[in-house]
């Protein structure tokens, strides 16, 4: 449980961080809390040449109101996310899902941006960001660019972040209208990763479901939108039957893995049950 030797940089600004990444050699890892990186380094699954620790980059922390969106700094810790009033007001789904992440100790060190950039398919926050149509603000030495959630998650543990780039903040668009949200997580012990989980946002209008957005956790190498369910939930009566019928589409287009926690067909089944439950709660049924 001793990592291979590595160089360590602890910048205090984004610019310093970008410089540190650029000059860190062949294999640089950015540490944004270290709750996943340190274990894989201790197991020597990863042996980076340089670790750039963002802990001291104060400008990457905190949540602010930016008009039509709230903006979450990439280094905002999970525990700060859980208690943040702006998130509670505009995107309580994030807080609800974050409360299920690992344990209290991990939530005090782990960060929102770190979890998203790590892009663990069993992690809870990528599917939530996807369902919320979050935008990812990425800084490089050449400037900044913004990537929508639908394009950010590329593959297993792989994102649109290019070498030398840094995820600096995540923009969560404010949602007009009446939205209900729920994160339905399924795991075996409290601190474990999701076997499958479903993030549901439902907009209701006078007893009808106007639209829904469904994010799926761990149903493939990346988080997914359950587009079949979403299509079935456009302007329908908010009844148990319509929700159940829509949820039957939850596994369409997914490619879940088979592992100790469940084989693919079981995960597909879970996705349907959990989608039904998540939408039911989000729709206030």
């Amino acid at each position: 449980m001793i990592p291979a030797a590595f160089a360590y940089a602890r910048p205090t600004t984004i610019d310093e961080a970008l410089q540190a990444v650029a000059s860190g050699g062949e294999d640089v890892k950015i540490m944004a809390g270290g709750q996943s990186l340190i274990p894989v380094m201790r197991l020597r699954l990863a042996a980076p040449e340089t670790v750039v620790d963002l802990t001291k980059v104060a400008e990457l922390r905190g949540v602010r109101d930016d008009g039509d969106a709230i903006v979450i700094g990439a280094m905002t810790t999970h525990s700060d996310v859980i208690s943040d009033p702006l998130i509670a007001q505009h995107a309580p789904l994030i807080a609800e899902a974050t409360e299920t992440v690992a344990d209290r100790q991990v939530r005090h060190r782990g960060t929102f941006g770190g979890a998203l950039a790590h892009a663990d398919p069993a992690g809870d926050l990528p599917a939530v960001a996807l369902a919320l149509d979050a935008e990812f603000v990425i800084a490089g030495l050449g400037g900044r660019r913004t990537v929508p959630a639908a394009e950010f998650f590329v593959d297993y543990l792989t994102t649109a972040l290019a070498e030398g780039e840094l995820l600096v903040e995540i923009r969560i668009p404010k949602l007009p209208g009446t939205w209900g949200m729920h994160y339905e997580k399924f795991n075996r012990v409290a601190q474990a990763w999701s076997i499958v989980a479903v993030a549901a946002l439902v907009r209701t209008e006078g007893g009808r479901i106007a639209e829904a957005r469904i994010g799926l956790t761990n149903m493939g190498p990346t988080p997914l939108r359950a587009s079949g369910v979403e299509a079935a939930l456009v302007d329908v009566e908010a009844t148990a039957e319509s929700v159940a019928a829509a949820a039957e589409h939850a596994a369409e287009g997914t490619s879940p893995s088979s592992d100790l926690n469940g084989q693919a067909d079981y995960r597909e089944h879970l996705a349907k049950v959990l989608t039904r439950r998540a939408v039911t709660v989000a729709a206030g049924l």
Partner: protein
Amino acid sequence: MTLVEEPVAAQAPEAEIGKARLRKEDARLITGKTTWTDNMVLPGMLHLAVVRSPVAHAKITNVDLTAAQQAPGVIAVYSGRDFADEQGSIPCAWPVTPDMVNPGHPSVAVEEVNHVGEAVAVIVARSKTAAQDAVELVDIDYDPLPVVLDMEKAVGQDAHLCHDHIDSNESFNFVFDAGEAGTGGNTEQAFADAEVVVSRRFVQQRVIPAFMEPRSVVVQPQGDNYTMWAATQIPHILRVMLAMITGVPEHKLRVIAPDVGGGFGGKLQVTPEEVICMLVARRLGKPVKWTETRSESLMSAHHGRDQIQYIDIASDREGNVKGLRCRILADMGAYLRLVSPGVPVLGAFMFVGIYKFPAYRFDCRGIFTNKVPTDAYRGAGRPEATFAIERIMDELAVELDMDPLELRRKNWIKAEEFPFTTAAGLEYDSGDYEQATQQALELLGYDELRAEQRRRRESNDPVQLGIGFSTFTEMCGLAPSRVLGSLAYGAGGWENASIRMLPTGKVEVVTGSTPHGQGHETAWSQLVADSLGVPFEDVEVLHGDTAISPRGLDTYGSRSLVVGGAAVMKAADKVVAKARRVAAHLLEASEEDLDFSGGSFSVRGTPGTGLSIQEIALATFAAHNFPDGMEPSIDAEATFDPVNFSFPHGTHLCAMEVDTETGMVKIRKYACVDDVGIVVNPLIVEGQVHGGLAQGIAQALYEEAVYDADGNLTTGTFVDYLVPSAADLPHFDTGNTVHAAPGNPIGAKGVGEAGCIASTPAVVNAALDAVRHLGVSDILMPLTPERVWRAIHQGGDGGDRATAGTNAYGGAQTETTAGVSTDASSLGGDR
């Protein structure tokens, strides 16, 4: 010396036995302000790292240590070949049959590796980091052999062999037949005559002890003496065994178990790493330390359980049991360790449970596979047996369409029938199964839950409810030495204690029963405080160092209080007897006229006379005025060898909710009433019950050591090997009945394993009770949601799990944690 006059009518000192004392040792253990083995730092100490096999079965064709030897900070690198002439074999102290096959267990593999994680080379370096860095530089070529993983295949036709120098995969075949032993009738006849026979195949999955403190060893050579510090349960046994393995004379070897952070049987072992540390320290003449990582621990420390049980039960139509037949395949893993074969054999005597079987036969085959060896794990043989009998009783009840509790009641030993000799030949000492059961039913709120269960069934609720029973007993207090002898165990089962009365009246108690977290210091202090009438705070308990506590057999098998505590009581009696003689001399009275109460001797009928035992300790130190011919000491030593085991029993009830849509199970309520005899410290007993329940429930619901088809342990980290936390467990409603054990002076029966033994079948029975009406009759442990869902919706027992570890955080498995670099070391993304 002044004789202080004290009012005779003062209130009697409060009895310590029965008091829920907070544990003396907790402050230092909980805050970590103590010396664990890994905290030891000695001048010039070198650090070891063990290179482990990444393959399950192979011939070693080439070993190249050159690059590792040249690495910075590395002092030496050894392969198995370097130790071949001096490492001997890890000992197996329990040859359960005269013809048991022991293939031999080198500490470092020489020619062949037989499980993933087996030691193949050792790095010695100036720092732990340097040692670890050099692990990847050792280059070993393996010529793969077929892997033997499945016991049923291993005993089949044309099976591949785990060890090619022996002619099968069977180590032993141990048979206990009640008819032959004269403890019951003819089992085959009983089955031939039976009106009803139920047969089932149960699987006791392989689990990992997962103690909190990883194993750690420090060895310091000084001249021709060696001192070893080890995170072990058994410093005394370890000393004897290491002397025999390494040839270092026993009197030149001192073994110290400082505070040890849990064991659960997992540190009841003579480990390869302990031998390696001795050999390296001897060769280099330098102190050395080895501390394992968690993933090393999971893959190379011994595992537990792992049996396939074919159980047949015979009865008449009214539910009177007529016979029990158990055929067991017990997985030894690749080698025999200290008591590997003895674990299933201990169970042989418990399969009949609390029931009056007229006939019984037990037939167990120990099987080699290419997995890490199995050995003691909390309960050791008895959980396996209890699971089988409590599961088959439920199956028989279903077959007979009887209430499972009524079936049990019809067949269990009645309170007035104690002592009762079972078909397995054990004499159960005391108890009242009906009383414990009634109390447990009330604690659970049985009738209400049964009513709710009916409602849920009738309404076809997606969440179904079930109630499971486990009316269990177990044998504790290992052990009567002559019984162990009759079972060919290599040692006795006595325990030793001594008491030293210090001049200031303080008391040192030396126990041979070395704790690893149980609270001996507190409980022993309570025993001595009562026996000698001294304040609890005035007692210090010393243990765990063969130089301080020279005689002992350590802690396992719920033996410490029952055997070790009894030795303390015997020693205290001797101290009082000696002190009485001194008191008689000082008080100028005859010994027969002295009363001893509350720590003081007084002359019967003469108020105002009094001499405390603590004052006598000072008088003994001075020895100015001492009885003629008496040596100036009131210290005493005692060794206690029980004549019988003790038999805790209890009724455990689990109410379980099963979500039929997802297969998720959730314990709604858990109630248990245990009879552990006289309780010395209710707080410690409650803690032991809680911890035992957690582990027993964990076997039912969470834990399983899973190997893939190549023999890699895929549950190689705590990401995949699920140990539950408090958040995952229900509130426990616990109670006690008290029937004193007649076999020891305390009347205690032992509690360390009870919860772990009893709970597993209660949990599984509860889940099955919830879904049996849906056509489910068995679900493999652990009851993962997937298995429960499949059993409900696809039939069968839930089937095998996919063996791949989860991909969360990179998918660490033994393939990648055996210290071998892989392609996976380039994961993308920020973490």
